[in-house]
């Protein structure tokens, strides 16, 4: 299991955050401050590329829901892309897939933003 690394790619209106490793009580504050900065900078269309994500804690998921809601209020969203089956199962078990938009891939999430998302 790896420490969490976060990489930001800006693509027009979109902010794509590539997560690698595990989002837990130790690493989440770092993502939280990155998301906070995006929000302050008026960037409300965010895709979290979770393809290399190994773990996510419930507190992290809870906070992501908060970010998604605030983004929606500004006409944007925070979408999850490329979840591993392991993590998708957890998200589904908690019913959070009904609140957060979960996409197959970054391209898929990108498209959904395109069509007015």
């Amino acid at each position: 299991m790896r420490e969490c690394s976060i990489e930001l790619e800006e693509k027009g209106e979109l902010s794509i955050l590539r997560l690698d490793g595990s989002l837990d009580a130790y690493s989440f504050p770092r993502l939280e401050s990155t998301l906070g900065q995006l929000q302050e900078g008026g960037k409300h269309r965010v895709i979290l590329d979770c393809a290399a994500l190994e773990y996510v804690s419930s507190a992290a998921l809870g906070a992501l829901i908060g970010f998604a809601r605030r983004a929606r209020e500004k006409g944007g969203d925070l979408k999850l892309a490329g979840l591993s089956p392991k993590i998708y199962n957890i998200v589904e078990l908690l019913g959070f897939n009904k609140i957060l938009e979960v996409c197959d891939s970054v391209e898929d999430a990108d498209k959904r933003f395109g069509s007015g998302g």
Partner: protein
Amino acid sequence: MVVRGYVTLHVPCRYSYLRIIRQSVMDLCARAGLTEFKAAQMEMAVDEACANIIEHSYGGETNDEKEPRHPGIRVNLMHCTDRIVVEMLDRGKGFAFEQQQTIEPQQYVESQNQRGLGMFIIRSFVDDVAYETGTRAGNCLRLTKMLH
């Protein structure tokens, strides 16, 4: 109950060690032949419980200087014939486990204070939970997950 494998860990009261605890959980689960999905549930329950020990039982992380004398977190992981058992021990203040309210994920996302999801996960992701304060080894939370 025949113990087929075990790992005992002792780490400081710091969030940065949660990863090594989860790693050990995943390792023992794989060894025991638990499905990836069940292993992920056990991993998450243990992670939530250990994060709670740091946040609530100890009231936060220790700083470097205090570390050597701080009792830290002890984790006993056991693979028995038909189950995985994980015990987490701390010498912090503990709590009234049975009285603690859990919150369903659905209510959680609608609630203001966002408390109680950890306890929900701990209770619903494993097959048995037992908690005892003030044992000789400190407060002990024992999570059991059946292999089948």
